[in-house]
Each structure stands twice: as structure tokens, then as C-alpha cells.
């Protein structure tokens, strides 16, 4: 494993950023400050972080409605993210996209997506670009357990395998699609088993274990980068918040919630890293306060930013429309 101390610090900071960003957003939503729907990624931090640790800015990811964590892990500017969630002119999408559409193509983030399963085909596209132009760029497609049941994901996995594209499919199996449990909506025993359906490697890992994810992703992304084709990784975990904010999560039992808390990906990372002497308590405390400051700064940035002007409704539809 290629996990240097520096990488570990970075990974910790990323996970913490995601967690604090989501907690801030939850709070702001409860205060009535944020419009629309927000789907929070808290609890799943190890996945985006462990996977994106192997990607550079030139690599691509496609994302989901639950996209904040992917954005942060892929390096999208946090100020611009918070402003976008507000709908401010300084947002990543000038306030036109909102939480469900945050994107930054220059950072290789091809957009959160409001359509479940839509990222699969898009990922084939950036993969095809890399293959056609002969670059070594890799695309990672994040999708949920619910999305695994969407026809687009089947088509995308098959196409990526037929065309031998540099794409890695990462299924974030958090056990639910809205209030519908995974065991009900998915007939497979493991989503990773579906690798067989496309003759690609399929692995199930603990979605709360950063180290396991990091290692599994390293292999899959390496494979893709070497032109050996796609892989499928299923990460089993949970989400701490409801499907979207406002969901009281009546469908999750108290035991289940307790069990999840005990598997907290950030706490576990901290524990393992400090117990093994890889990181010190001080280093972590220092990062914690740095990250808290970054999130607070993003909040202030968003708050004081201006709203887009009304004429913006009509712009950016086309590059050129006579």
C-alpha cells in the first residue's frame, strides 16, 4: 500500500471536512437558511476519500444526488460549494445548480446528479475520451445501492467492459434507497457479484474502513490506468442523516443507528492511526481545528455572497443561440 503519512493526514482532513461540511449544512437547513433538498454524505466519508486519494485533478468522477463528499474529496473549492448550496452567485455553478448539481469540470468533478443512475453513462464518456486521446486518465463512477437497480448502470457497466474503458464503478451501499431497504430492492446477494455479469472483478469492502477502501481502490484504479478495464467495488456502510434533510428516518431502528455509530469511519480511522502510531493525537487535533475554520470560513463566504441577478435565468442555456 502506498499510504504515506502525508497521504494519511490529507485523508483525515478530507474526511473531517466532509463531516463538518455536512453537519454545518444540516444545521443551516434546520434553521431554514437553505432552499430545496439536501442529501448528506455523513457516515460515508471513507468511501469518497479512500477512492479519490488515488486520483489527480486530471482524473474524473461522476457523482450522485448525495454529492458533497465526492466534491470535497475531488478537490472542489469548499467556499464555492457552500455558496452553491445557498444558491449564491459565487457558487460553483453560479447558484443555478444547487446541492444536487454541484460540479467543477476543471477539477474533474462531472457533477452531482439529480437522476439516480445517470452517472454511469457519463463516466463511460470521460473514459472514452481518455481512451480515444490515449491519455491515462481514469474515471470513477460513484453510485448508490438504489442506483444499482437502474438500467443505466447495467448498460454503463457492460459498455465500459465491452470498450475496455478506464472506469471504476464504486457502489456506495448504505442499505437504503430512500426508505426502501437494500434487501428488498436488490435481488443480488452482493452487488459486487454483478461483476460476473460483465466479466469484471467485483469486490465487497467495508464502507467504513478507509484502509480497506484505499487498498481496494488502488488496485482497481491501477488496473484501469494500465488499460486493463473496469472493476466494480461495493462499499457497505450507512448514512447518518435521513434520505434528505427533513426525513425523520422512522425506517431505521434505534439498534441499527447505534450499530452504525459504533462503526464511525472517522473515529475508526483515528483510532487505528493513533494506536499504530501513524498519526499523533496532536496532529489530529490540529487538523480538526484547521478544518473547522475552513468550514466556518465557507459559511461566512456563502452568507456574505450576493444572489445572482435575475437576468441570469436566461444565460448559460446555450454556448450560442441566434
Amino acid at each position, binding site marked *: 500500500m502506498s499510504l504515506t503519512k502525508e497521504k494519511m493526514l490529507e485523508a483525515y482532513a478530507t474526511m473531517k471536512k466532509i463531516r463538518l461540511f455536512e453537519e454545518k449544512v444540516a444545521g443551516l437547513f434546520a434553521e431554514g437558511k437553505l*432552499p*430545496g*433538498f439536501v442529501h448528506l454524505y455523513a457516515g460515508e466519508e471513507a468511501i469518497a476519500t479512500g477512492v479519490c486519494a488515488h486520483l489527480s485533478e486530471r482524473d474524473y468522477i461522476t457523482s450522485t444526488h448525495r454529492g458533497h463528499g465526492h466534491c470535497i474529496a475531488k478537490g472542489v473549492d469548499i467556499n464555492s460549494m457552500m455558496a452553491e448550496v445557498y*444558491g*449564491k*452567485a459565487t457558487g460553483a*455553478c453560479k*447558484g*443555478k*445548480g*444547487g446541492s*444536487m*448539481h454541484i460540479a467543477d469540470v476543471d477539477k474533474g468533478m462531472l457533477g452531482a*446528479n*439529480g*437522476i*439516480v*443512475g445517470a452517472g454511469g453513462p457519463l463516466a463511460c464518456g470521460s473514459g472514452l475520451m481518455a481512451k480515444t486521446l490515449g491519455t491515462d486518465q481514469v474515471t470513477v463512477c460513484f453510485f448508490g445501492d*438504489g*442506483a444499482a*437497480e*437502474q*438500467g*443505466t448502470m447495467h448498460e454503463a457497466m457492460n459498455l465500459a467492459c465491452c470498450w475496455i474503458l478506464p472506469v471504476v464503478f464504486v457502489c456506495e451501499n448504505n442499505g437504503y*434507497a*430512500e*426508505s*426502501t*431497504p437494500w434487501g*428488498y*430492492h*436488490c435481488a443480488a446477494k452482493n452487488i459486487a457479484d454483478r461483476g460476473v455479469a460483465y466479466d469484471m472483478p467485483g469486490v465487497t469492502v467495508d464502507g467504513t474502513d478507509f484502509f480497506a477502501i484505499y487498498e481496494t481502490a488502488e488496485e482497481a484504479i491501477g488496473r484501469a490506468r494500465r488499460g486493463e478495464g473496469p472493476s466494480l467495488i461495493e462499499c457497505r456502510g450507512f448514512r447518518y442523516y435521513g434520505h434528505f434533510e427533513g*426525513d*425523520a428516518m*422512522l*425506517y431505521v*431502528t434505534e439498534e441499527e443507528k447505534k450499530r452504525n455509530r459504533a462503526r464511525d469511519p472517522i473515529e475508526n480511522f483515528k483510532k487505528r492511526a493513533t494506536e499504530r502510531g501513524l498519526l499523533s493525537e496532536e496532529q489530529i487535533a490540529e487538523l480538526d481545528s484547521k478544518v473547522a475554520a475552513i468550514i466556518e470560513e465557507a459559511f461566512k463566504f456563502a452568507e456574505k455572497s450576493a*444572489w*445572482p441577478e*435575475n437576468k*441570469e*435565468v*436566461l444565460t448559460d*442555456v446555450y454556448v450560442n443561440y441566434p
Partner: protein
Amino acid sequence: MAARTITFREAINEAMRLEMRRDPTVILFGEDVAGGATLPHMEGENKEAWGGVLGVRTGLAPEFGRNRVLDTPISESAFIGAAVGAASTGLRPIAELMFIDFLGVCFDQIFNQGAKLRYMFGGKAQVPMVVRSMIGAGFRAAAQHSGCLYSIFTHIPGLKTVVPSTPYDAKGLLSAAIRDNDPVMFFEHKLLYDIEGEVPEDNYTIPLGEAEVKREGSDATIVTVGRMVHFSLEAAEKLANDGVNVEVVDLRSLSPMDGDTILDSVKKTHRLVVVDEDNPRCSLATDVIALVADQAFDYLDAPCKMITAPHTPVPFSPGLEDAYIPSVESIVSTVKSFTG
């Protein structure tokens, strides 16, 4: 029939409940419609964790059980297609397409299968199904959860399209849609769920294809539908204060559309404004104008006007979204421009 005040949401719920009681072949399915009822710890108790994203289906799973109220995977093609297959073999399914913006992942089953099956089979089959779906902007739900899109479905031969504006209409039209023997797309504007109105307790139907004059007037005709009925009535109120009497025609059904009521009104008022939340090109608004510009041309005293959303996706930022939606002010000023 005893009537009482309930919300639009409750009216929809009640139509489904009463039709399901009346006819055991009526079933309901879609994502989370049983609302977590499929969870192990819910089993036996037949309770539900949520009645769908906006709570429209509360209580249906407990009353009718998990055999008639079924959760689905996120597989819109499969379950809308299942509605077509079930309808053509003896059930009367109601399939819920959560947001109409998701039509892109299941459109084939609606327009190539459901809509055309009867015709392709030479009339030897029928497809009595309803697809219920949420429409409309104003919820800060951005570009992929805020469309109207009923113009597209109205374009398609073989489909019926219904867009209620009041709790009373919602219940009567949904009951009619469920009993109808053709595939019906039933559009629910998410910003109407909370409005209240008088609704009889019993079952009743409102025939598909009948518009309603929601306000009479003589100076101009506004043809409209859905949430825009309320905006138009508000505009009409303001115009009345200025002595302009506007007639407001609520289409209710877009296909079949009640051309007679539109034409009669325009023949009386000689002026037409169409107010429509859908995008403008090849749309309901242009459809109504084309009808009038052909069949009531000689009665028209002024250009036909349409007030619609612009030719853009729906923006997220609240101010932008409000600017996207047709406004009461724009209705008032358009009417004034040719009556003043």
C-alpha cells in the same frame, strides 16, 4: 354528499383509497409508496415509515396491505412497463413516477408501449392504467426535479393527460382516471399539495376532457392549467379592480382537450392569453393558440398572447426560480396591454 375542507394532498389520497376499496383490481406501486413497510421490523404491524416523499400516500399500505401497495426498486422502466403489462391483462394499476422529470428513464414504456399497444393490436387490447407524477417549479428542487413536461405527453397519441388545480378537481379527476380504460398521465403540482378546498366525502368523478370556467368575464379569456389557474385568478381579481373582466378557463384535461369551452369563451371575449408554466416551444400554450387562430380567427380582436416559463431549464437559486415562473404581474400587464 357531505363535504368538508381538505387539502389537495388528502384529496388525491382519498381518491386512491376509495377506488381501491371499490375495485380490488386497483393496485398502487412506485418507489417508497409502501414507505418502508417492507422493512423487517415493520412486518406484521403493517405500518409505514413514510407515505412517500411528500406524504401523499399515507395510510394506504396499512389499509390495503403490501400486496396492493408495492414498493419498487429504482427501476422506472420496469415498473411502468409492469403497469402496462398488468393493465393489458386485467389489473388497473396506478404507477407512481415520483417526479415527472424522471420520464427520461422510462419514456419508452409510456409512449411506445402503453400509449400504442391498443392501436398496434388493432383495438384488441386496452390499457387502463394511471401514472401519477409530480410536476412544477417553485420548490427549489432545481433543473431535474421541477419541470412540467405535460406538453410532451399531450403530444403523444394514445395518452390522456390531466392536470388538476383544486382539491375537488383532483379527487374527481383521479377517480375518473382510475376508472378510465385508457392510459392516463395524472400530473400533481407539488406546490398545490397544501392548498385546501371543499371536497365531498364520497366517491365522484369529473369526466376527462371537460374544462371548467373558473371565473366568468367578458374582456379577455385566460386559458390555463394547474398552479397557473391560481395565479390567473389572482390576476383576474386585480384586473377586476381596474374594471377589466377576465374569464379564466381551467383546462383540467389537456388530452382530450375541451376545445369548445375555449372557443366559446374567445368568441365572447375576442382576446386570448394562455398562461402556462411549461416551457414555451411546441407546448400547451402554442397548442391552444393554434386552435383559436384557426377556429376562432374571425372573432379575435388582438394578437394571441402566451405567458410561459422561458426557454431555459429551471434554475436553483430562489430568486432565479421565482423569475422563471410566470408571475401574476406579467398576466396583469399582458391583459392590460390589449384591453387598456
